[in-house]
């Protein structure tokens, strides 16, 4: 189908975009890369009255490292993330994850900010932001707010952004010594939305985790930072310890059921991902002996 009629404004600056959003509220929609918004409009799932196109705002583009903070502008495209030496040096989880997002022609248009503001619970980048403990920077007429990624995502397509605010950038702590990451997703075909996925960031010291952030996606109404990971921090990982953590993960998750998978299947896949992740991060293939629960 075709999108229904709407008015169009090409924002000339962030201030101009905020004025437009302030004047039109939730009757307006922000257009960045359009790779989620355009399908929704073409399918008539949404019919905004006004499209505010922020695509020309160069100030929202770019990747910069300053001290121990990696800052990524909202308009940075997936392909820019994929090719950036700064990203692969300081947030290699993102480099790996982006390859799983859709297909080249989509990654050439889709933006980081668009993906985060859209907040599809099955999408990769929101989970990466949670795993990487990112701060989401948003700006409105009353000024700037900084929101921890784990608090930014509120539900299916729901975030902490108000209708009159714009997502400006994200800030990530650069990878520290002993950092390691893991990314894997189960999907019917490469490029499809995940049935279950895991983005993980860890800090290892010897054979132990001193930090472990497991952000599961497509198993809830938003990316889920698993509390069960706490059982794996600071203790020697034995098969029994890992089994306990996997069981706790299963109790903690409340996955949705759809035509792709039942809730128990998603819970099972999440436990499989946890085992694989821990085994891979510690280089202990003995720990990935299969799901026994």
């Amino acid at each position, binding site marked *: 189908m075709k999108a229904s009629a*709407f008015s*169009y404004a090409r924002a000339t600056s962030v201030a101009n975009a905020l004025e437009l959003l302030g004047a039109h509220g939730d009757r307006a929609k922000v257009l960045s890369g359009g790779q989620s918004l355009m399908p929704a409009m073409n399918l008539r799932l949404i019919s905004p009255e006004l499209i505010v*196109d922020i695509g020309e705002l160069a100030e929202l583009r770019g990747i910069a490292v300053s001290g121990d903070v990696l800052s990524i502008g909202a308009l940075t495209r997936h*392909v820019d993330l994929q090719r950036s030496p700064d990203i692969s040096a300081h947030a290699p989880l993102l480099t790996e994850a982006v390859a799983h997002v859709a297909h080249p*022609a*989509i990654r*050439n*248009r889709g933006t980081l900010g668009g993906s985060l503001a859209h907040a599809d619970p099955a999408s990769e980048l929101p989970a990466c932001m949670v795993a990487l403990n990112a701060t989401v920077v948003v700006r409105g007429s009353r000024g700037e707010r900084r929101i921890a990624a784990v608090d930014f995502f509120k539900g299916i397509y729901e975030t902490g952004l108000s209708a009159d605010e714009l997502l400006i950038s994200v800030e990530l702590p650069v990878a520290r010594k002993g950092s390691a990451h893991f990314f894997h997703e189960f999907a019917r075909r490469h490029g499809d939305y995940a049935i279950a996925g895991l983005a993980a960031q860890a800090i290892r010291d010897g054979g132990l985790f001193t930090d472990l952030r497991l952000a599961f996606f497509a198993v809830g109404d938003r990316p889920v930072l698993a509390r069960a990971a706490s059982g794996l921090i600071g203790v020697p990982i034995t098969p029994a310890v890992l089994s306990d953590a996997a069981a706790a993960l299963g109790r903690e998750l409340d996955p949705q059921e759809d035509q792709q998978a039942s809730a128990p299947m998603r819970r099972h896949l999440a436990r499989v991902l946890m085992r694989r992740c821990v085994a891979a991060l510690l280089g202990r293939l003995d720990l990935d002996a299969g799901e026994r629960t």
Partner: protein
Amino acid sequence: MTAPVPISLDVNGERVDANVLPRLNLADFLREHLQLTGTHVGCEHGVCGACTVRVNGDIVRSCLMLAVQAHGASVQTIEGLSDSGEVADLQAAFRDRNALQCGYCTPGMLMAAQDLLKQQAEPDREQIREHLSGNYCRCTGYQAIIDAVETTARLRAGRQP
């Protein structure tokens, strides 16, 4: 603001000025305003890849881009790539390998395949599959398409197919 918006862009090397409604997507603009009907419209929500064109050198879905967003851009369609001879060998390989039947997906396939071959001189079959994974073909079962792209890559590298 629902009124037509003036845009000017470069399409296959020619400057185009037009007034378009905001809701018009780039695929329909190319097909209906410029009669460049080689760009096909399949699913209209970014899944099938039939509408793939180049914008500022990158392949994109023209059904997921508004014509107004192409203001100031350089757009290349399958007509442009075909007329310039850029994909002549790829087209020949598609013919030789029977890599098309109905032909609906072919312009998008050629766009995506040429994009890969520009980035990577000799991709393996897995890399070809990965790069074409966003382009659906309901006729060929894909094997012949992969064959054609692989053959073209080898010939361009100066090797026997």
